[in-house]
């Protein structure tokens, strides 16, 4: 087991978690992909020390590196790649709706915490669903909603 790889896992996890706590979605995407890399490297470390390629006929079984963690790693890489793309799409959607990619507050929650605050735009109720009937209009409606939130 290599201590250099362990340090890499630690470093990637630390930086990834730091980015993940940010409010900007583009940072979150970066944080998630760093964390995903850290997990993948951890899986590789878990497979034990490196050896010959695990192909029958090219090396003796005792010299081969363990193929199972590599298979798990490949699966994990594919999943994290797909999800990174999804997160990017979500960040883009948020940018279209509100002009930036920051994670916003839960308005309904704020309203209950502070009953004197001005009534929030209908967050969980009708307004959203009315928009959802015409997804194309949602961007415009979202822009209006974020305008009222700013006041």
């Amino acid at each position, binding site marked *: 087991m290599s201590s250099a790889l362990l340090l890499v896992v630690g470093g990637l996890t630390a930086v990834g978690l730091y980015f993940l706590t940010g409010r900007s979605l583009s940072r*979150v995407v970066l944080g998630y992909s760093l*964390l995903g890399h850290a997990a993948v490297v951890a899986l590789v470390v878990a497979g034990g020390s490196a050896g010959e390629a695990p192909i029958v006929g090219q090396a003796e079984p005792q010299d081969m590196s363990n193929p199972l963690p590599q298979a798990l790693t490949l699966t994990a890489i594919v999943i994290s790649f797909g999800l990174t793309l999804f997160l990017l799409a979500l960040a883009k959607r948020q940018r279209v709706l509100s002009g930036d990619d920051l994670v916003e507050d839960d308005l309904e*929650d704020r309203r209950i915490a502070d009953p004197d605050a001005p009534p929030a735009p209908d967050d969980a109720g009708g307004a959203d669903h009315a928009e959802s009937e015409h997804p194309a209009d949602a961007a415009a409606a979202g822009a209006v909603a974020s305008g009222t939130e700013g006041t």
Partner: protein
Amino acid sequence: MTALISIAVIAPLLGGGVSLALRNHRSWRDAAVLSGLGLPAASALVMLAAVAADGTHTVAVGGWAPELGIVLVADMFAALMLPVALTTIFVVEIFAIGQRRARWGADPALSGPLMCVLTSGVSLAFLTGDLFTLFIAFELILVSSYVLLTHQGAAGQVRSGMTYVVMNLLASTLFLFGVAFVYSATGTVNLALLAERIPQLGDGVRFGIGTWFLVVFGTKAAVFPLFSWLPDSYPTAPTTITAVFAGLLTKIGIYAMIRFHTLTVMDDLGPVMLMVAAITMVVGGLGALAQSDIKRILSFHVISQIGYMLMGLGLFSVAGTAAAILFLIHIMPVKAVLFLVGGLIENNEGSSSLDRSGGLAARKPLIAVMFAVPALSLAGIPPFSGFVAKLAVVSAAIDASATVAVVAALVAGALTLLSMWKIWNAVFWSRPAADPSPGPAVRSGAKTMHSATALAVIGTLVVSLLAGPLLDLSTQAAEDLRDRSVYIEAVLP
């Protein structure tokens, strides 16, 4: 039997694919989705009968040895969960198809196939015999849930969807780290082998693994203090999607916890689980009282009810585990029905906010009845299924003299009743709002929605009626889980 187990995983995927290909032919598309969801539900019922008759069945996928390949294991626990979960999804999908014309509905051309993928993940999560495939099953469920939650792209959905996605991505990454830890400690991800090897590890490593997976599955299950994403994101999705999420997703976290922590004998984590369970129940109940929107109240109840199941598991006794299993059987349909009724109310009142509803009991007595039955059941009033399930949990806790947890469970029960009363009062009894029916009362498909909900209510009543036999089966499942040799010998002959 091999065919039955495979159908539960593969049929939904096939149905989803066919439905996506036929998305321009409405009736064929819906038929593909319904058969993709109905076939596994039917096969799960047959599977339950088969497992009850002659014990655990396993399928080695691709004919690999269990140490090397993927095994699917249908033991009593999995066989009990599968029919309940799959039938719940099936009924909700009927509601969704009825709702396609309504303003509040999800687009069935997209949500039907996604629901199929989610169902396949649910089946796989129940049946899988190794930790990494459990990770894959979680990803199948979560990826489709991300898309279901945000595919309409409305502002509220994207906002809360982001919290949901990021929290669950973090939990999935932690899961992957956990798999790495387990693999480096034991050299396997097969659950049966883990059941043999993890108890032999040193205390430090064992607790490390147990606590790590408590956090991972706890985030999926939304236990205190890892629940913040749930009440924010669930209410923004269309009714049918929320119903499936609330009915199933968190329960699969609990399922994984029961499976993993009993197989690897984490009995020493019991006190921690009981404490977390007690706080979860009370915090969820208090959170629900503060809300003023039906869907948000119900979302906080999802959290509160999770506490009961964690409490049953945390006792680490046969009675406690059996109670947790019975509670899972009770809560999946009840929770889904409550959200479906919430959708019906929203359809009639134009909003799920308590302030804008009123007097519905006089105008729509059927909806009032369909709300009252699962609501009383959720609060644990006899003779409904919730009473039996809560009684089982509490009496198991009294046997184990876990006083704090018992008190918390009773307090949470009272809080649940209070907030159900709050909904009842505001929606069904209070004076109608100035404009009593803002939306057109009858839409096409309303009949389908009402009959789907009625069907689901009848389903919860069937669970109440069969509570005795179900408790026997749950006890048998719990004995097998606690004994462990049943599972190990079935997988590693």
